[in-house]
């Protein structure tokens, strides 16, 4: 019995390892950077830029021609030593805010960023008002509450 369990365990471990080994990036045929910090920057940047022909993919994941061109441009800019902010500005000035998965905070995107907070505030304050009214009601009976509600 215990032998069977160990065999099963080993088998599942082997299968897990096999699954993990499939996680290879095969889309970007380009060489990696000589500087590991640049490589890291390139990978983070390309996974935050939307491929506009296939809108739910990042340019790191997309095989579209445009994604390929955009990767090449990002690579060039990283190699030229441009900062992340400069590279993002380059793309936003050409393609608009939609090109970034996390658009910059500015007047036109403020509502987008603040909406969750706004909704939480509305919901939270409604909840608070309802609770405080409940607590002011007499504690012992349900009937007055029903009457009040009608």
């Amino acid at each position, binding site marked *: 019995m215990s032998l069977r369990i160990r065999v099963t365990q080993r088998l599942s471990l082997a299968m897990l390892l096999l699954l993990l080994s499939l996680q290879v990036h095969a889309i970007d045929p380009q060489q990696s950077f000589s500087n590991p910090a640049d490589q890291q920057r390139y990978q983070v940047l390309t996974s935050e830029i939307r491929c*506009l*022909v296939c*809108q739910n993919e990042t340019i790191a994941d997309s095989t579209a*021609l*445009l994604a390929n*061109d*955009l990767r090449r*441009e990002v690579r060039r800019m990283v190699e030229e030593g441009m900062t992340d902010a400069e590279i993002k500005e380059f793309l*936003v*000035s*050409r*393609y*608009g805010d*939609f090109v970034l998965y996390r658009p910059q905070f500015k007047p036109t995107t403020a509502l987008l960023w603040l909406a969750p907070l706004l909704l939480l505030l509305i919901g939270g304050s409604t909840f608070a008002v309802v609770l405080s009214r409940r607590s002011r009601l007499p504690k012992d009976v349900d009937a007055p509450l029903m009457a009040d509600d009608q």
Partner: protein
Amino acid sequence: MPKGLKFALPALAFIALMGFFFIGLFRDPSYIPSPFVNKQAPEFDLPKLLQENDSLTLVDMRGEYSLVNVWATWCAGCRQEHDTLLRVAADYNMPIYGLNWKDDPAKATLWLEQLGNPYVANGVDEMGTTAIDWGVYGAPETFLLSPEGIVLHKHIGPLNIEIWRNDFLPLLQGQGT
């Protein structure tokens, strides 16, 4: 809170939400507005198709209204709009400049020989770098430039004569042409 408001508020919120959804139904998610509209068109300098030693730049387009059309022989929508381009060039006397995007110049030349050439000149952008500068994400795309080189309008997708009449012509007439 007054009694009426207690019911009116959620109802109003619901109607507003439905309003957003309803508008969303008719919006094309593949349409991404260009940040260049009403701004200076990006500079570029590309070798001309058919005349490789010559180059096409924004300066060539100054002084009159013009169209910049992004096309390629691999692009089905470009084939579809080709007759419209020919018509706009002939009937409306509109100078059209082509941006031949990620294409084989030999195929592009053949295309123009076989289908007719609506373009004043074509810039060859084999690498697609000028297209990125112009915020191009899918051919065909057509920009309307003012005589001063300001982008007045951008159309994404194949042109037809209705789109030309409705979206482009009024902009020309509005400027007194």
